[in-house]
């Protein structure tokens, strides 16, 4: 009886192994996970290739990619030269979509306008009250409350923080000198909330607070969003179109390996705080079949896949950029 059962089990395992189609594995950033999982399920329906992705964070993704555990990694911050060397040197960065970081606040009024320097002043803890003259001069039409500002930042290390602090460092020399930029920094002021939900919750529940979250969280939680002054002098609220415009404006400056940023770009409608998310792959694939599948998926994502971005609050790549990225994807061997 037992032996029969065992035989059936082994038989079933072999059967399922035989009928199993090609599987690709990836791991990395949580930020693009919603669109990636949409892509993977659409792609499987279309082409029958199964792609698994573990949203364990960019750091974990790069670690597993370097160790050769996964076919591709997902990351919100490009790999450093040292990491690329460690991974064998043939690493390609494939930007897939872009995201915007929204500045949300809860102070009893709407329509706040900020420029980069003032935003940095608030997050440095130097601007302590909502009716500070520096904020008032940018918002002459709003009667600002005489309330303390509570800064809320991410406590977990994240790509969102990387984009936000890189923006502050770019527009404020004081920020660059005192804090710097990275996925996790030594915050001079405020409290930390875990993840986008943690920051959203803290902002919602504390009067006088200001924080930064991914665009999707600002949109779905209906928190007031600050309009940020862009390089062309316009105040722009975060949006998918404003983000695509940023990449279009920066296209000439994006390096050939796509490890570039699109912060604080020119253009009337450009939103200044946004960035890429990347998939990292080896140019020289060891497994032919997997390499071909990976290449096909990436091209699909950069063409047909882009239409799913907007409904999930990601910005699609501008067509001109997507064309260049596809050339790079085609170099995978």
């Amino acid at each position: 009886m037992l032996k029969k059962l065992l035989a059936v089990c082994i038989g079933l395992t072999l059967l399922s192994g035989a009928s199993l189609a090609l599987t690709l594995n990836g791991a990395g950033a949580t930020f693009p996970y919603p669109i990636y999982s949409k892509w993977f399920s659409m792609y499987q329906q279309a082409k029958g290739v199964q792609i698994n992705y573990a949203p364990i964070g960019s750091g974990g993704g790069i670690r597993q990619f370097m160790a050769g555990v996964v076919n591709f990694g997902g990351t919100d911050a490009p790999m450093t030269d040292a990491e690329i060397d460690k991974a064998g040197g043939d690493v390609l960065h494939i930007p897939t979509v872009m995201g915007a970081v929204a500045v949300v606040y809860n102070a009893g009024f709407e329509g706040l306008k900020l420029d980069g320097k003032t935003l940095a002043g608030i997050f440095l803890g130097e601007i302590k009250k909502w009716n500070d003259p520096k904020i008032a001069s940018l918002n002459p039409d709003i009667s600002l409350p005489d309330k303390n500002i509570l800064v809320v930042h991410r406590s977990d290390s994240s790509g969102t923080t990387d984009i936000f602090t890189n923006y502050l460092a770019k527009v404020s020399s004081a920020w660059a000198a005192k804090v710097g930029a990275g996925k996790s920094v030594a915050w001079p002021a405020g409290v930390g909330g875990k993840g986008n939900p943690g920051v959203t919750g803290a902002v919602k529940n504390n009067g006088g607070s200001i924080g930064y979250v991914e665009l999707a969280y600002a949109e779905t939680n209906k928190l007031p969003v600050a309009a940020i002054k862009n390089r062309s002098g316009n105040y722009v609220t975060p949006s998918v179109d404003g983000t695509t415009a940023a990449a279009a404006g920066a296209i000439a400056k994006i390096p050939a390996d796509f490890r570039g940023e699109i912060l604080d770009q020119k253009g009337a409608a450009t939103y200044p705080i946004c960035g890429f998310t990347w998939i990292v792959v080896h140019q020289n694939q060891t497994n032919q079949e997997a390499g071909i599948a990976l290449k096909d998926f990436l091209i699909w994502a950069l063409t047909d896949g882009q239409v799913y971005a907007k409904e999930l609050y990601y910005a699609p790549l501008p067509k001109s950029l997507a064309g260049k990225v596809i050339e790079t994807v085609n170099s995978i061997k």
Partner: protein
Amino acid sequence: MHCKGDTVFRFITLLFAASIPLLFFGVFSMLVIKSQLSIQAFGLGFLFRSVWDPVRNQYGALPFIYGTIVSSLLALIIAVPLGLGCAIYLSEVSQSKFKAYIATMVDLLAAIPSVVYGLWGIFVLGPIFGLSMLSGGVLLAIMILPTITAVSREVLQAVPGSLRESARALGATQWETVKLAVLPPAASGIIGSIVLGLGRAIGETMAVTMVIGNRPEISANLLAPAYSLSAVIANEFAEAVSDLNFSVMVEIGLILLFITVLVNGLARLMVWKMAGQNRIQ
């Protein structure tokens, strides 16, 4: 009669038992090996520094150690009287049917996932105490309350009824009975329940992270934001790319393990001492 089956049985259970020390040793040695880079970079000073600047690769664990210890002690200060009082009521005082419902609810409290406690903390404790050490302590107190209550109640109920009856026969009031006849023999078990609670408080991660404010700063003000060892691992480990940052995270884990072992050891000592004193002659 010695039979072959017993030898096999003995061998198999020995194997299972041996897996525990093996696992502990495995975890411990992994933590030590992977934290070498951080230990070499900062030495023992890591325990006493309070800088935390991932951009400039400067790390120190003191604010996290402080936060873990203070928030756990706060939790104990609140939860021990409450939990013990509740256990005494359920075991010694109440005769009503009502107590069965309370006992069930205590068990239910223990079954709530910690992330749910954290969410509740953000929306209920947050507006009252802010995102602060006190919020963390109060939330932890609520989380360890069921552990302390349920285990103490079991321990109290295990005290032989004859002890109570003798005390009552000597004319003791209900309070005197509990104080003189029930609590002393149960003391070591009650301490055990407190240690279980403390263990949970020290290691609790998700709920604390959500309400403690995550600010690596030592402040005497309980209403100021703080940070804990487990919270910083949860927050930064996933994105720790540089080797040093990764190693620092592992060393934080090693410190957390040491604190847990230390607390458990101290508690074990206390239980032994108490058990020695109160042995019923």
